[in-house]
């Protein structure tokens, strides 16, 4: 097990370097004046350009810039924005909000998706089954910003059940609707995955044995069936937590949440390269680590899987 983790971690390194270099290259090395529009309507003063070129090593080759950035990163320093604000501080302000939102989305999609999936997987072709199949299709087809706008308009503006934007400081209750919006597409996938998985395993031998032993149905489903059927769902949920954080840009923009997505979007618009790279680095790291955790979780859910 220890060796497996080590090997996986080593495999992560080239992927991590490749992805971050790709983003670094896109943000910093693509031709174009990095100071265009930085100083309002007029050209930037030469002193400013000289200072910033020095600060971000803009006169050095791109790989030297990248290595310098990575060296600082390994010491826990994300650098500064053009204005001199510490990016560590920016991230520390925004990241907890995004984590809260992603966890809320994950909870909602897991609870609703799993319930719908298990219920329909156990009783296929009923009314509920068709209802879930059709509604999941709709959820998959609805882009996040459409769901977000409609819910914000109906619940927030028209019926005034929720506040249209999330107040600061963020309360968990105010994240329910944004979490639902963010997790809605994944919820549909969770429901469908769970349904297929349960339906497949229901006719397997060990379930028949468990029923034949006279176990109560709750135990058959809860212990035997669910644990075996959950593996693909857990994989999906785990990788989705990483994806949700990267995909929260739209949701955060609609509901005015001061999260990482909004920060990075603002940074892209104002050409704050250092901020963009730093946030993408974090998102990629989280995503890769979540994938690793999911692989290791397999062993807990399915004792048949062994890591040499």
């Amino acid at each position, binding site marked *: 097990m220890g060796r497996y983790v080590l090997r996986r971690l080593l495999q992560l390194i080239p992927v991590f370097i490749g992805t971050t270099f790709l983003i670094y290259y*896109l943000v910093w090395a693509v031709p174009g004046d990095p100071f265009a529009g930085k100083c309002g309507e007029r050209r930037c003063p030469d002193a400013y350009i000289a200072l910033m070129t020095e600060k971000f090593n803009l006169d050095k080759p791109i790989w030297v810039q990248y290595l310098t950035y990575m060296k600082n990163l390994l010491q826990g320093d994300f650098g500064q924005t053009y204005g001199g604000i510490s990016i560590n501080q920016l991230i520390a302000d925004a990241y907890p909000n995004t984590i809260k939102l992603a966890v809320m989305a994950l909870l909602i999609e897991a609870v609703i998706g799993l319930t719908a999936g298990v219920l329909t997987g156990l009783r296929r072709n009923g009314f509920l089954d068709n209802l879930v199949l059709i509604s999941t*299709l709709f959820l*998959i087809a609805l882009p*996040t910003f459409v769901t977000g706008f409609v819910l914000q308009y109906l619940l927030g503006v028209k019926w005034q059940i929720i506040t249209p934007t999330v107040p600061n400081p963020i309360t968990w209750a105010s994240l329910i609707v944004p979490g639902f919006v963010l997790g809605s597409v994944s919820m549909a996938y969770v429901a469908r995955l769970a349904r297929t998985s349960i339906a497949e395993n229901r006719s397997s031998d060990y379930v028949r044995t468990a029923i034949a032993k006279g176990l109560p149905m709750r135990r058959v489903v809860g212990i035997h069936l669910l644990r075996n059927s959950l593996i693909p769902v857990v994989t999906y949920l785990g990788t989705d937590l990483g994806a949700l954080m*990267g995909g929260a840009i*739209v949701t955060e923009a609609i509901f005015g949440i001061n999260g990482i997505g909004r920060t990075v979007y603002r940074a892209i618009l104002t050409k704050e390269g250092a901020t*963009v790279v730093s946030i*993408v680095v974090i998102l*990629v790291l989280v*995503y890769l680590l979540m994938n690793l955790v999911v692989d290791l979780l397999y062993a807990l859910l399915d004792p048949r899987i062994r890591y040499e």
Partner: protein
Amino acid sequence: MSDPTTTSMVTTPQAEQPTAPGMTSPPDAGSSAAARKEKPRGLLYNAWDDLRRKPMFWFSATLIVLFLVMAAFPTLFTNASPTEGVLSRSLGKPSAEAWFGYDVQGRDIYARVIYGARASIVVAVLSTLGTTIIGGMAGVIAGFRGGWFDSILSRIADIFFGLPFVLGAIVILFTFNPPGSANGVWKIIALVVFSLVVLSWPVSMRIMRSSVLATKQADYIMAARSMGAGPLRIVFKHLIPNCLAPLMVYSTILIGSFIGAEATLAYLGVGLKTPVVSWGIIISESQHYIRVAPWWFLFPSAFLVAAVLAFVMLGEAVREALDPKMR
């Protein structure tokens, strides 16, 4: 190769697909009609037989044909101009002369929605073609060659797969297509397509690679090889026709997701821009008027959702028809 309906005992679905080259591979499409008639009924024939009886298939196919006609010949549906703004009718409610009302510039929303189909569908179809071809080719090469070649290609795919989708697309588009730049319509379309393809080909590659890996060891591939077929012949005549089904299903669904993705990028202000008319652009323009003119937001969204739904449903129907386990 025997009829798959009689060899349903075979457990691996790939192994039981007959090669049926006349129906699946374009290079053989010219073979004589007589030869085709004598072929056993192939998987595709069975799938079509299955598909024909599904209302979901007909429903989604009808919708898709409707959208395609809309994209090709918008004048069949409306005489109004999608770009002519008359300020006196700004934010006019839906009425008999303008079914979906007018936007803030006084442009006919019905006409805009009809004309918007073209850009949305062109972007989605081109992106899907690119993703399928690049991802599919990478998958075939990685799966068939194996070894270090496979490892390297898979790691490269991991790199692109690790980028968050929306974020990656925004960065790419913002770098090459910053707001205020004077890129032509086709250049912007090409950039949007490029960013979607770059970020999504790894999934297609994984799907193709795994089905190639599963099929590579099948008896008929061995047989072809033992008869002296070269690698190119094996790949194009035997491997690809038999591995294509999962990728095709995924690509169908992908068209739907790309329609949504284009709209999301337009909404964020980095995708297609305003002289072009697309569903995403209309929705994006309407967002600040949702309280005074909900119809402006509602109708293009409905069209968008219907189009995505149609492709997702078609993909579902085809998947069920191609999956022998569902029979």
